């Protein structure tokens, strides 16, 4: 079967943009992506748009043009962007469409996410007692992982330090000032062992990708970025997820394990073939755990990898080259597509100061979120 190609990519800068709605940031990204692809809104045959908290994506047709285009809204937690992309590639793979969009945007209030028990099928007392807190889960998960696999707090700090250092060169990132390791380690604790620099913040942003069939991509004369795999999976039994009043003693795998293995199978390559990776880093330890969960190293290897700089831009496997969620913030509906945007930039060789050397030709992206969802993509040039 011929490949689905990404022929255009656009992004509204992440962070805080007062006075601009999440939807408007999505529209901004769409216009940029269309211009990048050299196509008009009127050429778009379909769109899948995702947002968690910033309104119905299809209402953007008011601003983009009332062409009657098929526009389907996607809402799938942290996998929202990945699910939009999965759906968009399936539309083209079906043979029914040649050109379409995957869009993700969001805009969240300041402060921690405020989840309510009823939204997660949990009893009210669970929230009243103070347990509807994502950072608690993240803290408990990494505490156990550090205990089991010999990961130090310094490694957590190194991940955050790398994120801010990379983001200096990413125009779409939010926090673009370097922060030194000692400052990161000495900052106030939020949920132990994480200090404030080791968590991302809820934020705003928008991303749009133009997808085309291989035939259409050739017509457009674009360097095709091939979407070799886009997978989305839910959790297996025995996984450890956010908002769990109890967990099984028998521990199992994760949604990430399944989504990742499936993506490598579809792409016909392995972790050792990937030249650059964007891994969900809503907190510093997530990047560390996800390195292993996605098959890039064994549990515990991360301690050495980080000390040796293997995940730096010039390392063996650069990870989160635009600073990831730690530096870009977390607009839930947009983050998954931001990773793919960044990979498109890297595969085109347009990363500037954050460009991965050696002309990378494969790129990997991964998101994970509540209550146990994961989406993975593999791109090839």
């Amino acid at each position, binding site marked *: 079967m011929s490949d689905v190609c990404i022929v255009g990519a656009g992004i509204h800068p992440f962070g805080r943009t007062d006075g601009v709605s999440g939807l408007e940031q999505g529209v901004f990204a769409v216009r940029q992506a269309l211009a990048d692809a050299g196509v008009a809104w009127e050429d778009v045959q379909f769109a899948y748009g995702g947002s968690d908290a910033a309104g119905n994506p299809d209402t953007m047709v008011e601003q983009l043009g009332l062409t009657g285009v098929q526009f389907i809204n996607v809402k799938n937690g942290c996998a929202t962007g990945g699910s939009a992309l999965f759906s968009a590639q399936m539309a083209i793979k079906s043979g029914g469409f040649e050109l379409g969009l995957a869009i993700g945007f969001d805009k969240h209030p300041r402060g921690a996410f405020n989840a*309510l028990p009823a939204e997660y099928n949990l009893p009210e007392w669970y929230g009243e*007692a*103070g*347990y*509807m807190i994502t950072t608690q889960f993240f803290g408990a998960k990494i*505490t156990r992982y550090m205990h089991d696999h010999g990961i130090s707090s310094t490694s957590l700090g190194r991940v955050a330090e790398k994120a801010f250092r990379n983001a200096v060169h990413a125009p779409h990132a939010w926090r673009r000032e370097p922060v030194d390791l000692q400052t990161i380690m000495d900052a106030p604790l939020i*949920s132990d062992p994480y200090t404030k620099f080791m968590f991302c913040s809820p934020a705003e942003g928008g991303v749009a990708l133009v997808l085309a069939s291989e035939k259409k991509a050739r017509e457009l004369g674009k360097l095709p970025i091939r979407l070799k795999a886009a997978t989305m999976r839910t959790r297996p039994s025995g996984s450890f997820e956010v908002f769990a*009043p*109890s967990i099984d*003693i028998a521990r199992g795998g994760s949604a990430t394990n399944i989504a990742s293995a499936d993506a490598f199978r579809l792409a016909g390559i392995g972790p050792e073939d990937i030249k650059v990776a964007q891994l969900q880093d809503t907190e510093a330890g997530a990047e560390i755990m996800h390195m292993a969960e996605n098959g890039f190293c064994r549990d515990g290897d991360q301690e050495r990898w980080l000390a040796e700089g293997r995940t730096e831009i010039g390392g063996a496997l650069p990870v989160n080259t635009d600073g990831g969620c730690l530096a870009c913030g977390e607009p839930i509906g947009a983050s998954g597509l931001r990773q793919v945007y960044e990979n498109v930039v890297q595969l085109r060789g347009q990363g500037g100061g954050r460009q991965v050397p050696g002309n990378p030709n494969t790129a990997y992206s991964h998101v994970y979120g509540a209550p146990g969802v994961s989406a993975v993509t593999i791109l090839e040039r």
Partner: protein
Amino acid sequence: MRAIAPGLFTEESQPRLVGGRNRATGRIVFPCPPGNDYEPYPLGREGTLWSFTVQRYRPKSPPYAGPEAFEPWAVGYVELPGETMVEARLAHVAFADIRIGMELALTFVPLDPAAADPVMIHAFQPKDLAA
């Protein structure tokens, strides 16, 4: 004792947590889910700490019903042998003394220690304190 919700704790002099046991698979969870798949199953009072963190900032209200004046508290998952791992406050232990694998026993603490007739939530404390 005024429990934070009905049906969570047994009505014994030394209350236990009421988990649920799946009638078909034997899987034990907490709390007992509604419906007929699970039957109420009182959980053991002692276990070991599987993991933990410290909540350093006041959760947003709603849903949090704790006092406005916030003091950090520890929360962890306690492995009850052969049953399940329950999420609970860790009480009567300094944060610096909390260790994975430490032996713990069930207790109950007020959600608002300053309240006259406080709502009680489940917690675990070092086992040697419970003797």
